[in-house]
């Protein structure tokens, strides 16, 4: 907050922050100066001129939105002349406006309508005839409708697209009275790079830009609005849900700590699944190969008796459970408590195994804590950002906007290291294209340069770390030449990247699956940590190591013990003291051996050692590697319980299906990728016949003789804060709109947790350098399988598609499976765009469509894994990282043929 100064508005003294926007300050002080183009999230335009005021000492009239507050300003905000001009400007706007408020989406929430009312301007009392000819409406985007006849050309959308989202797709086309907002200077919206985030809609003060899926759904006065957290990715954007009755009609970005009102296409438009008729609304029991509806009592009795039976016949470890990165912290806590205290096994894991197990393992070893060291918004102020193995624009869209802000608004240097030409490459100072699975080599190469050129932070190494000497010995071997030879990156680029990264005042590393999903995943993460420590870029504001967590609550599912080796708060199951503590708290005997991981559970099922499986809100039949193997395993299970909102690919194998609440119907918390625990609110009533996840679990538990009597999520969080120190200060009543970031250990209201980790000291004390040698991927292209296969996500769909593939708007962008293949492959096998191709690996085969692009490296292929009908995971390799047990989803060898 800047210095407070005194200004005078219409004779009244007003205190305002020095340098603040004068229009904003005047409005805050109760002066209702009109204005349509001012938007506090973008730079002022001064285009509508409605906010003109008189300022003593300045010639003529001045648009107050373009003036900064300074001591002694003497402002006339209202007098006859100013109001005359404002009315005159309103008349001009109305004369250009398509008349038809009664059918307009924003009727009763329109800046222009308010202005017309205020100055008594209608189409009939203008001093000149209004414009009559209409321009064509642009309706080619799947999600956005633009009506130039309602547009007041305030520039808010254009600036929102560039200054907020960093995209710069919108601009003005034509000139003067013919001006309109356009993509690509006048091309069709659908042909442009617009990805439908809808930031422009949110910025529009009138009805010129409206969300297509909302058209005709509700009048403004029929909707109620409630805020919650977006159900999709790990960014944890705050959303405002507009509903009519019990139906969502629109979603807006709300000012949350992680998103400042920004959203992506999924967050804004991906809600339609919520109203889908396929929602499960009654428990189902398999009988003679068919599902039949059952009562809750019958279904829960069956589950309890089967679990008890298998437990008694084959031992506790014959039962396993998959917790969920989609469910709340409270659900996950109760789930793992059930598995540990009621079943008596540590066989609990979840899909984090497939994404960041190596991060948790690697960073725990290096720093003592496996989460993002910094906060999302810090990216905007980093001087250098190294993004590797993260297609941030598509997987964490809102985080990518802060990275783009850093580059565009603050001149940060962006280094992208990725085999694919991802969107961020457009913003990058340097793009290093490594061969898949060679990350340790180029990271060591960069560090070799940093050490040899004296760019290392010696003081930091000396005071904050251990193990440097051993590490240095290994790094010395990785000359830029050697690193280049292994990784395929020209050595000059490795040297340049080292200099740029090490030369920055504060540098941040962003990584994701491209680093973690390898047999050397843990090694990769250790190398990343080494690089940060070598240059002292950790433990301070804007600088750090930032693994982006994929799902809305994958961080929370890990935090709350949805892992086979730790209780909630990363307390080890094989630590006797910890075990004793939990035995006391939970009143049950606990097992002290580490349980099975996801992939091991599937193996166990295949071998017959795991007999029963309880899956809550996960869909391994699409998400897991080597699906043919998973399918065999599923079939061998004696008893499978699936708890979900939809009938998923996995549920097809279930013996009992239990219908639960969606996140719009729940009360509880999610923990986002920056460790921020945020409240979610039940904005909709759940369908009749469904139950909240934790409630389902406690009802099974009761039937198995272990009392759980939670009446709401709040009570569960109280128990969590009691047993898990990093959540020690977390209480629902304290969270508010901004949540807190763990570790948050005290109950004090002002303890909002920790913005960035490891300041002064690492979680483990000293940061630990690990010497890491390069190990090649488990499978590389050969004569039989000559192409490099990698898999991942795309912007328009989410994970296994259970939700997004039920959303028309998202399907309009991308409706089905495809494979990106390099032009060299296309030429070799003689296929054209959209031709059917068969992709085969040692583990399986799929048929999909070819998309020919140099986005992938030569002789490489990339397949999004969302689409069950051509599931990429039938091809992927389930070879595991020996430490983290994460499979190598990012590298496999394959053959591609024309069908």
């Amino acid at each position, binding site marked *: 907050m800047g210095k407070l100064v005194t200004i005078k508005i219409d004779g009244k003294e007003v205190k305002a922050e020095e340098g603040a926007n004068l229009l904003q300050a005047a409005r805050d002080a109760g002066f209702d100066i009109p204005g349509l183009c001012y938007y506090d999230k973008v730079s002022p335009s001064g285009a*509508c*001129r409605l906010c003109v005021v008189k300022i003593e000492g300045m010639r003529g009239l001045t*648009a107050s939105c373009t003036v900064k507050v300074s001591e002694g300003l003497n402002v006339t905000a209202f007098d006859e002349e100013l109001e005359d001009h404002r009315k005159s*400007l309103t008349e*001009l706007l109305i004369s250009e406006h398509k008349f038809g408020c009664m059918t307009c989406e924003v009727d009763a929430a329109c800046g222009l309508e308010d202005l017309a009312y205020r100055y008594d301007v209608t189409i009939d009392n203008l001093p*000149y005839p209004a414009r009559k000819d209409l321009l064509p409406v642009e309706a080619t985007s799947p999600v956005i409708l633009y009506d130039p006849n309602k547009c007041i*050309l305030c*520039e808010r959308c254009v600036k929102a697209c560039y200054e907020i989202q960093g995209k710069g797709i919108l601009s003005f086309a034509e*000139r*003067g009275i013919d001006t309109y907002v356009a993509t690509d200077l006048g091309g069709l919206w659908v042909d442009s790079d617009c990805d439908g985030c809808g930031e422009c809609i949110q910025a529009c003060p009138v009805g010129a830009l409206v969300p297509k899926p909302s058209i005709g759904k509700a009048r403004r006065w029929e909707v109620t609005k409630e805020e919650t957290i977006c159900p999709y990715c790990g960014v944890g954007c705050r959303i405002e849900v507009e509903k009519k009755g019990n139906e969502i009609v629109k979603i807006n970005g709300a000012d949350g700590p992680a998103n400042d009102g920004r959203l992506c296409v999924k967050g804004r438009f991906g809600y339609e699944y919520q109203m889908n008729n396929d929602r499960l609304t009654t428990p189902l029991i398999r009988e003679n190969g068919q599902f039949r509806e059952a009562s809750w009592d019958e279904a829960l009795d069956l589950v309890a008796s089967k679990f008890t039976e298998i437990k008694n016949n084959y031992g506790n470890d014959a039962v396993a459970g998959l917790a969920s990165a989609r469910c709340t912290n409270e659900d996950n806590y109760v789930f793992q408590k059930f598995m540990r205290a009621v079943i008596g096994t540590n066989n609990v894991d979840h899909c984090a195994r497939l994404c960041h197990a190596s991060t948790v393992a690697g960073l725990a070893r290096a720093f003592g804590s496996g989460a993002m060291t910094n906060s999302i918004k810090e990216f905007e102020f980093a001087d250098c950002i190294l993004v590797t193995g993260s297609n941030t624009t598509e997987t964490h869209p809102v985080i990518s906007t802060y990275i783009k802000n850093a580059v565009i608004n603050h001149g940060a240097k962006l280094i992208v290291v990725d085999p694919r030409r991802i969107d961020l490459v457009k913003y990058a100072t340097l793009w290093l294209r490594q061969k898949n699975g060679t990350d340790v080599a180029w990271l060591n190469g960069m560090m070799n340069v940093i050490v040899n050129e004296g760019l290392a932070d010696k003081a930091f190494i000396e005071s904050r770390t251990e193990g440097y000497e051993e590490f240095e010995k290994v790094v010395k071997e990785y000359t830029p030449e050697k690193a280049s030879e292994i990784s395929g990156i020209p050595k000059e680029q490795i040297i340049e990247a080292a200099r740029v990264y090490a030369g920055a005042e504060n540098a941040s590393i962003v990584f994701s699956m491209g680093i973690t999903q390898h047999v050397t995943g843990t090694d990769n993460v250790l190398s990343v940590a080494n690089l940060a420590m070598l240059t002292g870029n950790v433990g301070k504001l804007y600088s750090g190591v930032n693994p982006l967590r994929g799902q809305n609550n994958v961080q929370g599912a890990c935090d709350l013990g949805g892992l086979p080796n730790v209780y909630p708060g990363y307390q080890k199951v094989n630590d006797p003291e910890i075990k004793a503590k939990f035995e006391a708290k939970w009143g049950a005997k606990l097992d002290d051996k580490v349980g099975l991981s996801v992939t091991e559970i599937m193996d166990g099922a295949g071998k017959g050692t795991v007999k029963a499986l309880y899956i809550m809100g996960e869909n391994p039949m699409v998400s897991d590697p080597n699906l043919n193997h998973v399918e065999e395993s599923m079939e061998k299970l004696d008893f499978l319980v699936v708890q979900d909102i939809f009938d998923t690919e996995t549920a097809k194998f279930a013996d009992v299906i239990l219908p639960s609440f969606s996140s719009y119907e729940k009360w509880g918390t999610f923990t986002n990728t920056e460790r921020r625990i945020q409240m979610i609110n039940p904005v909709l009533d759940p369908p009749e016949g469904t139950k909240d996840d934790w409630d389902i679990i406690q009802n099974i538990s009761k039937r198995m003789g272990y009392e759980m009597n939670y009446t709401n999520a709040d009570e569960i969080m109280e128990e969590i804060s009691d047993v898990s120190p990093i959540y020690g200060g977390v209480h629902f009543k304290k969270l508010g709109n901004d949540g807190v970031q763990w570790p948050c250990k005290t109950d004090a209201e002002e303890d909002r947790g920790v913005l960035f980790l490891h300041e002064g000291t690492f979680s483990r004390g000293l940061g630990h350098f690990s010497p890491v040698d390069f190990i090649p991927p488990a499978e590389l292209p050969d004569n039989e399988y000559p192409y490099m296969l990698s898999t991942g996500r795309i912007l328009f769909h989410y994970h296994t598609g259970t939700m997004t593939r039920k959303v028309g708007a998202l399907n309009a962008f991308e409706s089905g499976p495809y494979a990106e293949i390099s032009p060299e492959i296309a030429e070799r096998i003689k296929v054209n765009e959209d031709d059917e191709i068969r992709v085969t690996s040692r583990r399986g085969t799929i048929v999909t469509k070819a998309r020919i692009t140099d986005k992938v490296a030569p002789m490489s292929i990339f397949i999004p894994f969302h689409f069950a009908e051509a599931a990429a995971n039938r091809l992927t390799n389930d070879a595991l990282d020996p430490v983290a047990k994460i499979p190598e989803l990012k590298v496999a060898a394959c053959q591609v043929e024309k069908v």
Partner: protein
Amino acid sequence: MDFYNYYALLYIDDSTVAAGVKEFEEILKRKLAAADLLNSVKVLETGSSGLKDYGIGLSVYPGDIHYGNLSTADIDEIINEHFIKGRVVTRLIVKPPEEQFRTSELGPQDVRLQNRIVLSLSGVIDPENIFEYFAEHGYEAIGKILEEKVSPEKVVGIIKNSGLQGRGGAGFPTGLKWDFTRKAEGNQKYIICNADEGEPGTFKDRLILEGNPHLVLEGMLIAGYATGAAKGYIYIRGEYDLSIKRMEKALSQAYEYNLLGHNLFGSGFSFDIEIKKGAGAYVCGEETSLIESMEGKRGIPRLKPPFPGTHGLKGSPTVVNNVETLANIAPILLKGAEWFRSFGTKSCPGTKVFTILGDVRYTGIVELPMGTTLRQIIYGYGGGMREQRSLKAVHLGGTSGAVFDESMLDIPLDYDSVRNHGGMLGSGAILVLSNTVNMRDYLESVLLFFKHESCGKCVPCRIGTARLYDMVKLLETSDNKELILNEMDKLSETMNKTSFCPLGQSLKFPVQSIHQYFGDEILRS
């Protein structure tokens, strides 16, 4: 250096090229060669004389003989009579009043009228030959400054003392503008020469660019030195082919003789100049729109403050000066502020280049001291009205200036005086309209221009220009013309008070002045 009996100057500009001067030159040279006269007659290309409507023109020195409206059929006669026999071909002579002034034949009756500053060498020297500029003290000013190590403060001080005001139209004191940039912090500063001459009826800058490009370059060099800028751009109207060609040639010559580039005159001062072509938007003559355009963005005005002087091109301190302004710099430095102040009026010293066009006998360019009256210019240099026409109106200062009637012919033309009379001197365009012009029609054409050229950024200008145009059309048929005229006044007043940039702000001048001086005519029609 060779000496010749005759120097024959051919005026090369867009209008003479259109009239076939190139072919004329080729034939003339061929015939001179055939007559074995190449050693005694030197044919030189020079810039425009400033006069239009004379077709192909040829001036012969010694003798100050000016032939005009020539065709290739006249070549034999000129060679035989003038170059061989020494007899002037009287029937081909044109001697417009302005031409007399330029060649000092007017005599000593009005000393002030005998000096051109920025046009003194236009139509005299070969603009494509840097030596001709050298011979006329070219690059002496910057040379002196650098060799005598005159401080930048002092240079700015001289410009301040001279009272030079920006000749683009706004009349902002140039010295003050330079001082803002000189004092502004920044490692990189820029000088931009605004040569995007887009004002209808104005082509004064073209004459300077085509007639004496080095004068502009020298002005930019001095501006760069004075403000601490090392880089200059000439933002030149894309349609000005010849100006661009001559400027490119001048640049390459200046680089060749180390008058541009690194460490000039061993002083440590370095300066580079590049040409950027404009794409024809009127609003890009406004300095912040020009800068946006140079940055590759849409040509729309920027918020001010901050002003370009501190935050201009790429956010760096930037001086944007008009061509004519820059052309005044070297002469002022050579001859002193006092000398400059001896021209013009007390509040507006110096000369102004005026463009005369419309229904006068002679259209073209004249450079006259500030304070000269419209009457002097129209009747003295424009040769009065064309036959059988009488003067009805004068649109002064460009499209955005006021339209006066005959009663205003005696106001002295300088920035202050015209402003005090409800108009603006602007670019110095003087469009003379005769009794054949319907003033509503004329206003319609003016408003159509503005509707077309409004960039669309701000509401009052974007929509106001369209509604004003609608209203002027309505005037044709309406029964209530008076009401419409009053509404037009009111709207143009709001536009004046609230528009983002001068384009929308200045529309009230033509609208309200036409109402004031010619309202009766419109009401009657």
